[in-house]
C-alpha cells in the first residue's frame, strides 16, 4: 500500500508523545514516593537536610527497626487478613446487589448503600464501640472485617453498578432466548465481561481496608492491630522517627503492590477478552 509510508510518520510522533506523556504521568505520581523510599534509607538527620537529598549513605537501620524493634510482622498479617476478609465479603454482597440495581434500576438502593460512606467516621466511633463491646467483639478480626465491609461494600456497589449499566441487556436477552435462566445468563455472559470491573473493585476495596485507620484505632487490640495504627509508633512523645516512618510506609506499600499486580492481570486479560467479544 502506497499510503503506508505517509501514515507511518504521524503514528510514530503520536506514540512518542504518548510514551512521553505516560512517563510524565508515572513520574508525577511516583516522585514523592521515591522520595519516601530514599528517605527510608537515610538517617533522620539526612532526611531533614535538603542538601542531602541525593548525597547520602544508604542504611537499612530503619527497616531493621521496623521489623525487629517495632515487630511489624504481625501487623502486616493482621492487615492482610482483615483486608482479604473485608474485600471478599464486600464482593459477595456487593456484586449481586450492583447487578440488581443496574438491571432493575433501583437507584434508591445505590443511594442508600452509599449512605454508608457518607456518614463521617466520627459519628460511628462511639456508638459502634459501645455496640461491639456489648457483644464482646472488640479486639476480634470479626469486628474489623465487619466495619471495613461497611466502608468497602458501597465502593464495590458504586463501581459495579456503573459497569453493569454499561453492559447492554441484549447480550443477556440473547442468552435467555436459548433457554438459560436469568441467573445463568448473568453467570455466563455478564460476569466474564465485567471481570475488569470486579478486579478494579477488588483492588480498590482492598486498598481502602488496608488504609483504614479510624475503626482499627478503636476496635482493635494489641493482637489484632493493623498497620495504619501501628505507624503511629514512630511518632513518640518528644521526637519523630522520620526514617522509621518512611521505612514503615514502604513496608506497608509492598504487599498491596503485589496484590495489585496480580489483580491487574485480570483487568488486562478482561480487556482483551472484551475486545474480541461483541
Amino acid at each position, binding site marked *: 500500500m502506497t499510503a503506508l509510508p505517509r501514515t507511518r510518520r504521524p503514528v510514530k510522533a503520536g506514540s512518542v508523545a504518548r510514551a512521553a506523556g505516560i512517563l510524565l504521568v508515572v513520574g508525577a505520581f511516583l516522585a514523592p514516593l521515591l522520595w519516601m523510599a530514599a528517605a527510608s534509607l537515610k538517617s533522620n538527620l539526612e532526611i531533614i537536610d535538603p542538601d542531602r537529598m541525593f548525597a547520602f549513605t544508604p542504611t537499612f537501620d530503619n527497616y531493621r527497626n521496623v521489623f525487629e524493634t517495632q515487630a511489624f510482622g504481625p501487623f502486616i498479617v493482621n492487615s492482610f487478613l482483615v483486608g482479604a476478609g473485608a474485600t471478599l465479603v464486600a464482593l459477595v454482597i456487593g456484586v449481586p446487589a450492583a447487578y440488581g440495581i443496574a438491571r432493575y434500576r433501583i437507584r434508591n438502593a445505590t443511594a442508600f448503600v452509599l449512605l454508608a460512606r457518607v456518614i463521617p467516621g466520627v459519628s460511628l466511633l*462511639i456508638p459502634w*464501640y459501645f455496640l461491639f463491646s456489648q457483644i464482646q467483639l472488640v479486639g476480634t478480626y470479626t469486628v474489623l472485617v465487619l466495619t471495613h465491609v461497611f466502608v468497602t461494600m458501597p465502593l464495590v456497589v458504586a463501581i459495579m453498578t456503573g459497569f453493569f449499566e454499561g453492559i447492554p441487556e441484549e447480550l443477556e436477552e440473547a442468552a435467555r432466548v436459548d433457554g438459560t435462566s436469568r441467573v445463568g445468563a448473568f453467570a455466563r455472559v455478564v460476569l466474564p465481561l465485567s471481570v475488569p470491573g470486579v478486579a478494579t473493585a477488588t483492588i480498590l476495596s482492598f486498598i481502602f481496608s488496608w488504609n483504614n485507620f479510624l475503626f482499627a*484505632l*478503636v476496635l482493635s*487490640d*494489641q493482637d*489484632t492491630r493493623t498497620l495504619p495504627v501501628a505507624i503511629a509508633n514512630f511518632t513518640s*512523645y518528644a*521526637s519523630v522517627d522520620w526514617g522509621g516512618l518512611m521505612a514503615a510506609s514502604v513496608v506497608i506499600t509492598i504487599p498491596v503492590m503485589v496484590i495489585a499486580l496480580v489483580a491487574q492481570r485480570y483487568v488486562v486479560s478482561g480487556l482483551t477478552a472484551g475486545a474480541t467479544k461483541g
Partner: protein
Amino acid sequence: MFSTRRAVLALPAPIAAASVLGACSGESDPNALTIVTFASPWTEGLKDLVEDYEAAEGVRVRIETYGNEQLNATYRTRLNARSTDFDLMVFQTQDVLRDYSRNLWLADLTERVESDAAWDWEDFQAQARDAVSLDGRVFGVPVMTERHIMYYRSDLLDAAGLDVPQTFTELREAVAALHDPANGVHGIALRGARVPLVTQFSSFLYGFGGDFQDGDGNAAVDTPEAIEAYRFYGDLLHDFGPPGATNMGWVEASAIFAQGGAAFYLDADSQAYTFLDETASAVVDTVAYARFPAGPAGSHPYNIVPAAVGVNAFSEKQDQAWAFLKWATGAENCIRLLAEETAPSARQSSWDDPAAAAAYPAGLVEIIRDVDGDYVGHDRPRLEQVARAREYVGGPAVTAIEGGDVEAAAKDANEDFQTLLDDES
C-alpha cells in the same frame, strides 16, 4: 451449580472463620493487666519493668501504645462506653485531668497514695503532686516531669563573643546578633502554631509577671504584662524566626534547630535527646543548655507533669492495678528508669541520686535539681475545656507573629476566655 447459590452459601464461612480467629482479650483473667500509654522514655522503661514484675509476681501486664493524638481519641471512645478492656491509663495531666476526673473515668487514689509511708508520696516533687490532684483528691501518679529550658549553639555564641543570655533583653540581643538567614541560620526557632505555642509562651508570660488567669481564676490575658509578653514572643519570631513559623509545632521547630537552622530554641527539656542523637541531629557537639532567661518579673519557667498514670474507674481489677502501679513508681524503679531510660522522674530522690542522674545530659541535671519556688506548675490555662482555651489564648501570639494589632487581639481573646470560664462555673 450457578454462582449465586454458591456465593450465598459461602457467606457465613469467612465470618465464622474470623470468629474462630478472634483474639481472646483475657479481660477476666486476674493475673493479667492492661496499661494504655503513649510512646515516651517512661514507656520504654515500662517494658523492662513489666518483665520483672511478671517474673516476681506472676502477673502479666500488657502494654498498649498509641501516638499522642490517638491516645485521647481512644480514651474518649472507650471510656464513654465504660470500657473494662484496660486497667491502667497514662494520661496527659494538664489537658485532661479535670475532664476525666469529672467524667468519673479516673479512680480516686487519695487513700491509696497516702496509706503507704514506705512508698513515700511526699518524695514526689510538690508541683508534681499538685499536678495530679484536684480539690485535695489524687487521680494519678506522676511519672515524668518536664521543664522549659533554653537550647543554644555554643559554637555560634563563642564565635560572636557573646555571653549566655540570662534576661529577655539579652536574649533578644543575642538572637539579633546571630540571625544570619543568608547563611541558613535564623536567630531563633520557637513554636508558632496557635495551639502548640501556648505552653511555650507560658514561661515568657510568667517572666513578664503575667499569667493566664489571675488569683480569682478569671481570665487575665489582656493585662499589660500579658500584652507585653505576646509582643515579645511574637516579635522574636517575626523578626528573627524561620519562615512559616505559624505552622510550627515542636516537630517542625525542633527539626530546624537539629538541622542547624537556628541559634536558639526554647522548649521542653524532653527534646534534648533528639539533639544528642547522632543519627538525628547536626548539632550533637554544639548544643548547650541554659536556664530559661529572666524577664522583668524574674525567671519563672514551667515545671510540669506531662504524663501521669491513673487507674481506670471501670476496671474490675483495681487492687491488682494499684499493686503494679505502686511497684512501678517506687523509689527504686524511678531511679532505675532515670538511669537506664533517662525518664525524667517526678521523685526528688531520683534526682538526688548521683549515679542515676549521671546518665542525663550534663548541664541539664543542674538546671533540674534547681527546683525551688521559681518554677511554675502549669503551662496552660487551668480549666476543664483546656483545648478551647488554648485556641483563644494562643490567638494574640499568632497576631503578634504576623505583625498585627496585639492589643485588640488580646482583648478579644480575654473576652472569649472569660466566657468559657463563666460557662464552666
